[in-house]
Structures are given as C-alpha cells and as structure tokens.
C-alpha cells in the first residue's frame, strides 16, 4: 500500500497478507540504499504466522517518494510517525511492535526503540554493528554516485562462499541481486544513508532509554561490513542476545535465509 506522510508517498509492504486486529505487529526496516524487497521471505513467512508485517520503503528509497533522511534519529522519528499513521488510518493494531532492521535499518530500529521504549515489545536486528564507520573511499564513491560504490558494497557484503553462489532460492544470484537493487537507488540516496550510519553516535542514549527490554541481534560469522567486533559493540550496549549465522556475510537475509528464519522463529514464535 502507499500512504502519505508529510506529503511523501510511502510504500509499505505487508508480506502479501492484509493486517488483522488480533495479530502482533512486525516492522522491518531495510538497509542503506536498499528497499523492502530484502525482506521478501521473512515478511511472507511471518505474515502467514501470526504477524501484521510492515516493510516500508524509507523516504526516497524503493517506491517511496521524497528525499532520504539525513540522520538515523530522523529516520527513527519517521518510523514512529509512519506507525502512528498506520495505526490511526489503516487498521494496524495500536499495540507495541516487534521492531526490526537490517544494517542501517537496525540502527534506526535501535534509536527508535530508545525514542519510544514502551512501544517496542522486542528489538530484532540483523547484520549490524556499532559504531558503523564507513570508509572514506566508499563514502567518496557513493557521493559521486559512482558504480564502484555498488561494487565495493557487493564484494564486502557477501562472504566468499556467497560470491560463488549456491543460493537457496533456485536460479537467483544473491550478489547480482544486491547490486541490481543498489543500482536502482536514486542518486544521492546511498551516500546519504552511508553518511547517516557513519555519523550516528546516539546508541548509548537509545540503549539507556530502552533499558533491559528484549533484544536480539542476528549476524553473519564472516561479515566484513560490520565485523563481529562492531556487532558485539551493538549487542553489548543493548544487552542483546547475539545469534551467529554460519558461512554468511553482511547480507544475512539473502545469503542464509533458512538459518536466519530459524533464528528469527526462536524469537518471534
């Protein structure tokens, strides 16, 4: 569905199932330069297992109009604005949500959890870490909207095994799919996102506000974008349970969808 937030058309995926009043809500936020399609399998699964699934394209991303927001905190505020709108105007139950995200989306979810801790029943993060410094060559390439930015992310985000392939989804190349998705981002979107990740310093404040509420971080054992040291930094601040996916890089959702599903099921079902 498309909803209007601050004069922007925001696309919201539902995992192919209409929302119902007696279900829990699972909000999933995509990473830098990407869109809701990264969630396709998880979204479709949990939409058929008791959840109202909400997978928005953040402003300026995917099928949403507008400009990308320039900070993690602004994105987090937008998420609450969107959820409030969906709850008031689109029959999304006004109950605490499971708030999840991948990479940049996980930072947004964490910050959002700090902004409204009582509105979050579980914080569920994938392939992320803190701090999330971005190398200057990547920032420069993204700022120039150069293809090398996509190439760098594609190579660093997939473990060696995933670059060779043997995908779980028949006939699909996870590496080339990620590249095609990143190449679709409008000029400036990837840079804005990466800069927001690089600049984010608000986790301690968010973690203090969120307290000891339930939190899980699911990461790949061979993640070179947000290596294990950063993942532990994120998990430690939020007292999160850390689940490690084997033979997997940063793109946990596409590289090891079955392992990720099993880990998510332990949390959500």
């Amino acid at each position: 569905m498309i909803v209007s937030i601050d004069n922007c058309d925001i696309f919201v995926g539902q995992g192919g199932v209409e929302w119902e009043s007696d279900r829990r809500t699972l909000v999933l936020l995509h990473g830098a330069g990407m869109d809701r399609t990264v969630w396709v399998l998880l979204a479709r699964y949990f939409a058929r297992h008791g959840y109202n699934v909400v997978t928005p394209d953040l402003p300026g991303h995917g099928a949403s109009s507008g400009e990308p927001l320039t900070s993690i905190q602004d994105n987090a505020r937008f998420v609450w604005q969107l959820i409030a709108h969906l709850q008031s105007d689109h029959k999304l139950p006004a109950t605490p949500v499971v708030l999840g995200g991948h990479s940049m989306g996980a930072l947004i979810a964490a910050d959002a959890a700090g902004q409204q801790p009582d509105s979050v029943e579980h914080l569920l993060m994938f392939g992320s870490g803190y701090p999330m410094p971005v190398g200057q060559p990547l920032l420069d390439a993204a700022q120039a909207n150069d293809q090398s930015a996509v190439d760098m992310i594609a190579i660093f985000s997939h473990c060696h095994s995933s670059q060779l392939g043997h995908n779980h989804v028949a006939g699909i190349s996870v590496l080339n799919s990620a590249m095609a998705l990143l190449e679709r981002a409008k000029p400036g979107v990837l840079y804005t996102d990466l800069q927001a990740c690089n600049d984010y310093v608000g986790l301690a404040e968010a973690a203090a506000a969120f307290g000891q509420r339930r939190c899980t971080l699911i990461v790949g054992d061979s993640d070179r974008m947000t290596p294990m040291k950063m993942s532990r930094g994120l998990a430690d601040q939020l007292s999160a349970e850390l689940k490690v996916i084997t033979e997997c890089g940063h793109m946990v959702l596409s590289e090891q969808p079955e392992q990720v599903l099993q880990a998510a099921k332990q949390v959500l079902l």
Partner: protein
Amino acid sequence: MSGPEFLGFDTLALHAGQKPDSETRARATPIYQSTSFVFDDSDKASSLFDIARAGHVYSRISNPTVAVLEERVAALEGGVGAVCTASGMAAIHLGLLTITGAGGHIVASRSLYGGTHNLLSYTLPRFGIETTFVDPRDPDAFAAAIRPETRVVFAETVANPRCEVLDIPKVSAVAHAAGVPLMIDATLTTPYLMPAIRLGADIVMHSLTKFMGGHGVALGGVLVDSGRFDWEASGRFPEISEPYGGFHGMDFVEEFGPAAYIMRARKEGLRDFGATLSPGNAFHLLQGLETLPMRMDRHVQNTEEIVKYLSAHEAVSAVHHPSVPTHPDHELAKILLPKGAGAVFSFELAGGRKVGGAFIESLQLFSHLANVGDAKSLVIHPASTTHSRMDDDALNAAGIAPGLVRLSVGLENVKDLLADLNQALKRAVRSS
C-alpha cells in the same frame, strides 16, 4: 591489486552456483534425478508454496542440479537470476510469453535464427501476438516500429549467416526510451565474447545446446534477467507490476523488485508451459560450461585463421565475418566484441549452388549437419539443404547466395581444418 575485485569469469565458469555436496562431499555437481523433494513438515510445505521459504518442490519448477546451471549462467551474464529450459526455443518462448499475450506486439530484427523467425512470423500470430521485423543495423527502424502495445524488442547479438552485429547500446537506448525491454539471443557470442547485459540488454537467452554446452550432447536453453529494467515505471506490464490472479494475487515487482521478471518466468512460465530442463542435461551442460573461456578463445583463434585463408582464396567471392575489414560491422565488432566475433560465419563460393554442393561433399573433417557451436567443426550449404526448394532468385531475395556456405569452426588443430578446406575447395572448383 588496487581494491576489492569480483571473482573472475574463468573462476565463475567453474564454481558459480555450486558447493561440494553437503552430504557426500562430492566435488562435481550431483545429478539430482528426482521429480520431487520431501517436505520436512507441513509448515515447510505450505511455506514453499507461499514463496515464504526457499527450496525445491517439484522438478518442473526447480531442481538442485538445474539450479546450479541457472545460477552459474546468471553469474557469468551478470544477471540477477536465470531459468533453464528444455531448449533454446523454449527459452525464447518463455522469455516472450512472460511479458506478452494476445494483443501484444514485438519488434524484432529481421536477421534471426530460422526457428525464431517461424515462431514470430507464424506461431505467435495464431495467439494474437504480432511482430514487426526491422533491419538490425538501423536503430531508428526499431524506434519507428515500436507501438503502444509493443512489449519487447528482440534481436541476436550476432546473426547468422551474415554476422550482422547488433549495436546493443544504441538499440537498448531506443527500447528504453519507449519503456520497452530489450531481449537478446546471445547464443553465438556467449557472455565470454560479449557482456550483453553490461551493454544494455534487459533479458538474455541462450541455446545452451551450442557454445555454452559446447559438446553437442545435450539440448538446453536459459533465460537470464538483468534485473535492471523498471517494469513498474514502464507502465506496459501490469501482469508483473500489479496483483496477478494467476499467482495468488501476487504483485511480482512489489515482492521481488529486481528479480520480478525471472521469478514470474519460473513461477508462472515453468509451471504452466512446462518446458523444463532435465537434471541429466543440466549436468552435461555444466561440464561444457566449465571450459567455456578456453574453448571460446580457441574457437575464435581458429575462425580468424580460416577467415584469412578463405578471404585470400580465388574460389571464394565473399566472406561474411566481422573480422574482415570490409564487413559492414567490422568497426562495431572491434568495440563490442574485442575478444572476437564468434566462430559461426558464412562465405560464398563463386561457382554457385553446384560448387557449393560439391564443396560440402568433399569435406572430411567438417561434419555436414544442422547445428552450430559444437567442439567439432560443422558445415551446411543452405541452397542444397535447408533452402533446397528455393530457386536462385528466391535465395537471393532471402539474402542467401546459391554458393553460400555456413561454417561453425570447432576446436581441431587449425592446420588440419585448413587442409580439409583446401582439398574440398580444389575438388569443388574441379567439379565446375
């Protein structure tokens, strides 16, 4: 090394899409000769049907051996995904029918493989799909032929027998300006000689039977999705960009983004048309694909020597290969096909139909048959075989000279091939 680099083409040709078998640790891709696959539980079963989990259900839709080949070709082409089919023609059919239907229109190069020409000229019109044929060397002609109901522009990278080279960047720009995807038959060039997607193609298909498999032992086809075409923005493809009743109301663009086309081709096209590649054939094709780079280098090397030889022979009136400086696409081929313009080409014998027939019958190493892209060298004389019922005037009107001979140059020692051609040319000349 200045920065991170992608795995090389040669490495992908050997490894992409496959890991040693998890149970047996077999290094080669096993042949999963099974029609169907056991569900772990009812939840997994329903999730597979809902496309909420990944896995195989039934080999008409997907099979582990075939999936390795699909992923390998997708990797070599730079596409988001691929679907294998029972033959190259099945790939063309699946590729076109995924985005066209009754009332739809195709703009196609008029220089096409005969089977494709038949499909577009006679078979698809019976289902309400029309095609306008245009000169492949004229991008403006493609533009002029596009109508509101046009769903795809179709052409071959290098056509046979006269080796017209498609200017993919220009033709794709024309197609994209009209919101139409460019579908390319890249059979004769393979991704090794020409990266069709990088040049602008949106959909690429191959007859894997030819150079990709390379050994003439297995039929197969493949359809590759670049993932770069914006189906939603085009506005011409509601069957992909809006809820589709034929698949549980699924909006393929909404769910799969860049992989919308190839997912629909599999989930609808293989399900309903059923032109599936067998795992046995996929295994044979994988063995050939492993050596594609080395084979194509040798194919091209042999071809260029033979082209030089024939160009200098007094019994030969013309050689149609882009490496010949007088070929109309010589300069374009240097840009788009820097590793060589392939190993299938034609030449004309000065003596016409009779000399052509005598030449064919005198060859000893070249096999006289209707195929191309084999490791072994092949030859055919259209005027005495595929087009034997046409008189000389009709042949000329079709662009086929009575003395035209098509070669598919193989991997033999080129000295032996030249010797065979030499003795056959002498005999052919004597026959006249």
